[in-house]
C-alpha cells in the first residue's frame, strides 16, 4: 500500500510534466499559426494543421491517465485538486491547439486577398500578448505561483480592447469588397486570439484553485457591470 502510494505520487509528477510539455506544444503551435498569419505562409499553415495531432495526442494520453488515477488511487486533498486542475488545463490547452488550427485555415482562406497592415499589426500584438499569457499561466502552474496567476486578467485587458476595436477597423476597410472579405476573416481571427487569452486566464484560475483550495473566477462576463466589455 505504501509502495502503491509512492508510485501514485511519481505518476502525478509524470502527469505534471506531461501537461507542461503539452503547454509548450500548444504554445508553439499557436506561435507558428501567428507567424503564418503575419507572413501569409501557406506551408506553415499546413504544418500547424498537421501539428495539432501532436497536441491531440497529448490530450488523449492525459485524459486516459487522469481517469486511471481517479479510478485506482482515489486521490484526496492536494492530490485531488492537482488532478482536477490538470484535467481542466488539458482541455484548455487542447482548445488553444484547435484555435491555432482555425487561424491557419483562415489564413489559407484569406490568401491572395488585399491586407490591411494596421489590422495585421494589431493581430500580431494580440497574438504576442496571448502567447505571453499562455507562458505565464503555465509558468504559474509549474512554479505554483499565485501572484503570477493573478496577473493574467490584467494581461488580458489589452487583448480584449484590441478585439473590441477590430470591428471598427474592419469597417474602415469596407470600401474595398475584397479587402472587406479579408477583414471579416480577420475579425474571426481576432476573436480566436481573444479566446486564447481567455483560456490562459482560465488556466490561471485553476492554478489559484490548486494553491488556495477555493475556486473564484478572475473575471465574470455575466456580471452586469461588465456587460459593456462584450463585443
Amino acid at each position: 500500500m505504501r509502495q502503491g502510494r509512492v508510485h501514485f505520487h511519481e505518476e502525478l509528477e509524470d502527469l505534471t510534466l506531461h501537461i507542461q510539455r503539452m503547454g509548450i506544444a500548444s504554445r508553439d503551435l499557436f506561435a507558428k499559426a501567428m507567424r503564418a498569419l503575419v507572413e501569409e505562409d501557406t506551408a506553415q499553415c499546413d504544418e500547424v494543421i498537421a501539428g495539432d495531432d501532436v497536441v491531440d495526442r497529448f490530450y488523449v494520453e492525459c485524459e486516459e491517465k487522469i481517469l486511471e488515477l481517479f479510478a485506482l488511487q482515489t486521490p484526496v486533498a492536494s492530490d485531488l485538486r492537482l488532478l482536477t486542475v490538470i484535467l481542466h488545463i488539458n482541455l484548455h490547452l487542447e482548445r488553444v491547439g484547435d484555435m491555432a488550427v482555425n487561424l491557419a485555415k483562415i489564413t489559407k482562406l484569406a490568401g491572395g486577398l488585399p491586407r490591411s497592415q494596421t489590422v495585421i499589426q494589431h493581430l500580431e500584438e494580440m497574438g504576442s500578448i496571448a502567447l505571453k499569457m499562455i507562458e505565464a499561466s503555465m509558468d504559474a502552474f509549474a512554479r505554483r505561483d499565485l501572484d503570477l496567476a493573478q496577473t493574467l486578467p490584467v494581461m488580458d485587458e489589452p487583448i480584449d480592447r484590441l478585439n473590441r476595436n477590430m470591428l471598427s477597423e474592419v469597417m474602415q476597410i469596407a470600401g474595398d469588397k475584397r479587402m472587406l472579405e479579408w477583414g471579416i476573416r480577420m475579425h474571426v481571427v481576432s476573436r480566436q486570439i481573444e479566446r486564447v487569452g481567455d483560456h490562459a486566464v482560465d488556466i490561471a484560475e485553476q492554478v489559484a484553485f490548486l494553491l488556495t483550495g477555493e475556486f473564484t473566477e478572475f473575471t465574470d462576463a455575466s456580471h452586469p457591470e461588465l456587460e459593456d466589455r462584450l463585443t
Partner: protein
Amino acid sequence: MTPGTQIKIKTEVWDDMMRTPDMQVDRSGPPARSRQGDIVFRTQDLAVRYGSVLAVRGVSMDIAANRITAIIGPSGCGKSTLIRCFNRMNDLIPSATVEGTVTYRGEDMYGPHVDPVEVRRRIGMVFQKPNPFPKSIYDNIAFGLKVNGLSDDIDDRVEMALKRAALWDEVRKDLKKSALALSGGQQQRLCIARAIAVQPDVVLMDEPCSALDPIATAKIEDLMRELQSDYTIIIVTHNMQQAARVSDMTAFLTADVREEEDTRTGVLVEYDKTEKIFTNPGDERTEAYITGRFG
C-alpha cells in the same frame, strides 16, 4: 475506441429542469431537521491516561446532533480511546483515568451522579468484530430490551429494530435461528439493531466494517445514512474513503511521538467538515496523512 458501459439516464429529472422557467435548480438538499446542529458532545482539553501513559491529550471538540462524525488517524493515535470516552467505556479499564471535561447535552458525563449504565443505554456502541450473543436472532434484540426495562411490545420492538437495521427482510422467517449462523455483515447489522433497539440517542461505531467485505460494508454505510435522521453517529475508521463517503464531519488525530521520552500521545490535529478535510485540509499533517505521504 471500444464504447464503455453506458449508464442509463433517467430523463424525467432533466425534463423537469427544462420545464423550470429560469433553470434554477434547488441544491440546498432536504430541509434541516429540528435537532440537527444541536451540540450532543462537547469535550474540553480531554486527556486519557492508562496508568502513567498519556494516551490522548488536549482534545477539544463539539459533536453535533444527527451528524455522522468520523475519527481518522494512524494506528496508535488514540482514536478508539477517544470514542470510548463518549460512553464511559474506558471506565471498564482499571488503569484508565479521564481528565478535562466531556459534556453530553450539557451535562458532565463524568459527574459523580451519572450512572455509566444509563450512559451506555443512551449511547450505544458497535465494535470492530461483530459480537452477537450465542442466542437466537430474536433473543439478541430482546435481551437488551428486557435488561433495560422495555419489556412491553417486545415483538414489535424487535421487528422495528431489525427493519431500521435493514435486516428484517433477510431474517424475518428465521428469527429463532442462531445469530452465529448469520454472515459477518448480517451479524454486524444485527449488532446495530441490538444497539438501536433500546432507543439510544447516539451510536458509536469503532471500525464497524473492518471485518466485512465491500458489499457488506456498503450496506452498513447505507444504513448509517438511514439512521442519521434519528441518531447521532460517531465512527472510528481506518478507511479514509469510508470516512469521506459517509461522514459529515471528520476529526484527524495523530500521535505525538517523543522518542527521547519513549512516549506517543494522541492529539487532535484538525476537525472540520469532511468535504474540507478531503479537498483542502488546513493542517499539513492532515494533508500528509490522507494523501499517503506519511503514516
